[in-house]
């Protein structure tokens, strides 16, 4: 008559609750079966009020004590489920953050390389794809002029071999500079470059050049240094660049010097390999001299 109802057995069930449930089962002709289906939040447990409408347990016949125990039992069940779901949420959040921490290192590196954030040079290979190397047909060629400068303490003669080159955007061009070491010692120099006007610098792509690396010239040596570059084809379609048809590429040579007073380590001047410790020491000490730093040479 009262049908059957499933009941979830729990480790936290106290013995008197179990006994009262059993008493209910025997005296009130209700059979309790263990629940095999997992509890789901979409079907809330039948509250005492609800079970009145679908009468399985006749509450008027239950003692107050039994009602209280049943209520406590239901509350304990709800709390257990809530605790479990909270624990699962937090553990999943922890796992997500752990995964993010592991992924952060390559992700950070990739973002920095792409955007150049924090001074890391952009190694975006898409600037140098083959389709960028197709010349764009414009009316007037762009004039790229070459200028040079040498630091006062660097006894080199450094001049461009051609005054200018007329190029189209997307067309690769080769230019030469000549450097001569007029002193009687081996000297290491390092070149930096600048582009004028500054807005055009973003379109000036160098495929290969001689800048930012130490260049060693023996005493009295003269050498030719090439620059292979092109202007990005998007230069032709940028409205901000429409008035620019003259670009100046300016190279400056500085003297590279190591902090311990020597221009080059003894091992390197003998042509031997430099040990990693010595390399590290040299790198930490390497500075580019300004005229004020050098006392006399």
């Amino acid at each position, binding site marked *: 008559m009262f049908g059957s109802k499933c009941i979830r057995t729990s480790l936290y069930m106290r013995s008197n609750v179990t006994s009262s449930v059993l008493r209910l089962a025997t005296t009130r002709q209700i059979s309790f079966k263990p629940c095999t289906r997992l509890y789901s939040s979409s079907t809330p447990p039948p509250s005492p009020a609800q079970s009145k409408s679908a009468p399985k347990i006749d509450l008027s016949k239950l003692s107050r004590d039994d009602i209280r125990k049943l209520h406590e039992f239901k509350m304990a069940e709800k709390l257990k489920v809530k605790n479990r779901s909270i624990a699962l949420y937090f553990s999943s959040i922890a796992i997500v953050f752990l995964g993010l921490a592991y992924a952060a290192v390559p992700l950070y590196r990739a973002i920095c390389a792409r955007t150049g954030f924090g001074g890391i040079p952009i190694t975006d290979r898409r600037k140098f794809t083959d389709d960028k190397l197709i010349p764009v047909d414009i009316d007037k060629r762009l004039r790229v002029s070459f200028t040079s400068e040498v630091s006062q303490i660097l006894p080199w003669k450094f001049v461009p071999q051609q005054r200018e080159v007329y190029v189209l955007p997307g067309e690769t061009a080769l230019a030469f500079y000549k450097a001569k070491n007029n002193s009687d010692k081996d000297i290491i120099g390092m070149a930096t470059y600048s582009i004028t006007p500054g807005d055009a610098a*973003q379109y000036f792509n160098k495929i*290969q050049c001689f800048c930012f690396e130490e260049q060693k010239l023996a005493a009295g040596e003269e050498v030719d240094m090439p620059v292979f570059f092109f202007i990005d084809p998007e230069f032709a379609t940028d409205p901000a660049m429409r008035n620019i048809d003259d670009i100046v590429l300016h190279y400056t040579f500085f003297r590279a010097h190591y902090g311990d007073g020597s221009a080059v380590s003894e091992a390197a001047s003998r042509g031997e390999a430099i040990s990693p410790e010595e390399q590290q020491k040299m790198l930490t000490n390497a500075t580019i001299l300004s005229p004020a730093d050098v006392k006399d040479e």
Partner: protein
Amino acid sequence: MPGNPGNSLRALSPTPPERGSFPLDHDNECFEQMTKYLKCMKLVNNENAPNCRLLAKEYLRCRMDKKLMDRDEWSHLGLPKDSHEQEIANEKNKSPTEHTFGKN
């Protein structure tokens, strides 16, 4: 995106050269190719004419041969292909068109 206005901040982050630095030609191994190229440029008034670009190609080829530059295809350097490479490319391009003729 062509002509992206408002990307002036791009100028602030310099890009390094793609292949880094040329090794110095201390022994002047490619001196002749270089002088030929410079003479050509003087004749053309520095206009970067196609024949001068062929001489530039010869200079870079000399550098590659003397191990002063990494080997690479001419298309990656924006220079015209060699004649025998062009023939091979033409042969490859021909065969698909012959198939379509066969269908008709």
